């Protein structure tokens, strides 16, 4: 998968799970994995919501 920010290569984890956060090794931008037509793709992730936490 190509990073939409820097065009770097984002490797797909072997045991990828839908909703998993992946990070571009080149520019450090994070994305969410989701399935599109049975295949994994990435989309922007809301990085920290107002009510996010442990």
């Amino acid at each position, binding site marked *: 998968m190509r990073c939409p920010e820097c065009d770097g290569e984002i490797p797909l984890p072997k045991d990828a*799970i839908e*909703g998993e*956060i992946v990070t571009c090794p080149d520019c450090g931008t994070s994305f969410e*994995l989701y399935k599109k037509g049975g295949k994994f793709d990435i989309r922007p992730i809301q990085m*920290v*919501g107002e*009510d996010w*936490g*442990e």
Partner: protein
Amino acid sequence: MVYDYVRWEEKAIANAAKKKGVDLKLIDSKDVHLTLDDRYEKEFGNVVLQRCLSYFRSLHLTATLEARGISVVNNFNVALTAGNKLFTTLALIKAGVPTPRTALSFAPESAIKSLERLGYPAVLKPTIGSWGRLVALLKDKDSAEAIFEDREHMFPLYQVYYIQEFVKRPPRDIRSIVIDDRVVAAIYRVSLSGNWKTNMALGAKAENCPITKELEDICYKASKAVGGGILGVDCMESPNGFLVHEVNNTTEFKNTVPATGVDIPGLIIDYLLKLRK
């Protein structure tokens, strides 16, 4: 397991389930569409592990599942209490668990009066949120007034002035993982030099922390105070002994597992199996 994003923790829990031969269904809360008078067992089973990052999403989903007879870990009351620092502090005080002195105000002028009682420096924290986000050190009246002025222009949540005494402690705190009222692992979170905050998200270093009787006792009491389940209890080593300053509802343990060697994801699965009807 319901989630909104899969972090290291959710993936580790999924892998632990696989290893134990447990059929753990992963449900993205963002895909959920529920009619409130339906039965949900077919989709959710009878025990759900709640791992949403979003406090409001997790509370609303947990309330809905529990209303239809599904057991959720942590349950609604625990999530409500542990997800809000003020509610947690009130629960700790009620249970007699030592915690930093804390004041509450709703306007800058009255927050300054709170500070006059607590003394400077003090710490202003949002009641909801994690990772040290928007936690501010109030060194004196001038810095407090400047920070309060900013807060007045933010979302109303930030106009709940939850202010704690600044506790004299070593440059570290302790995160203990408590499952089913048992302290299973603990780490020191050692802050980066020059940073007074000890959040792992801000670069603190994790080191194994021995589980002493004193630590075990206070974490047990803190877990009981908020209602039990799977919790991350944060303590500070004050000159007068441990003080519990936070109890975390969907605790992270990415750094605790390698620092302690404890299989926390496996223990979580064991706990869920115990709860299965």
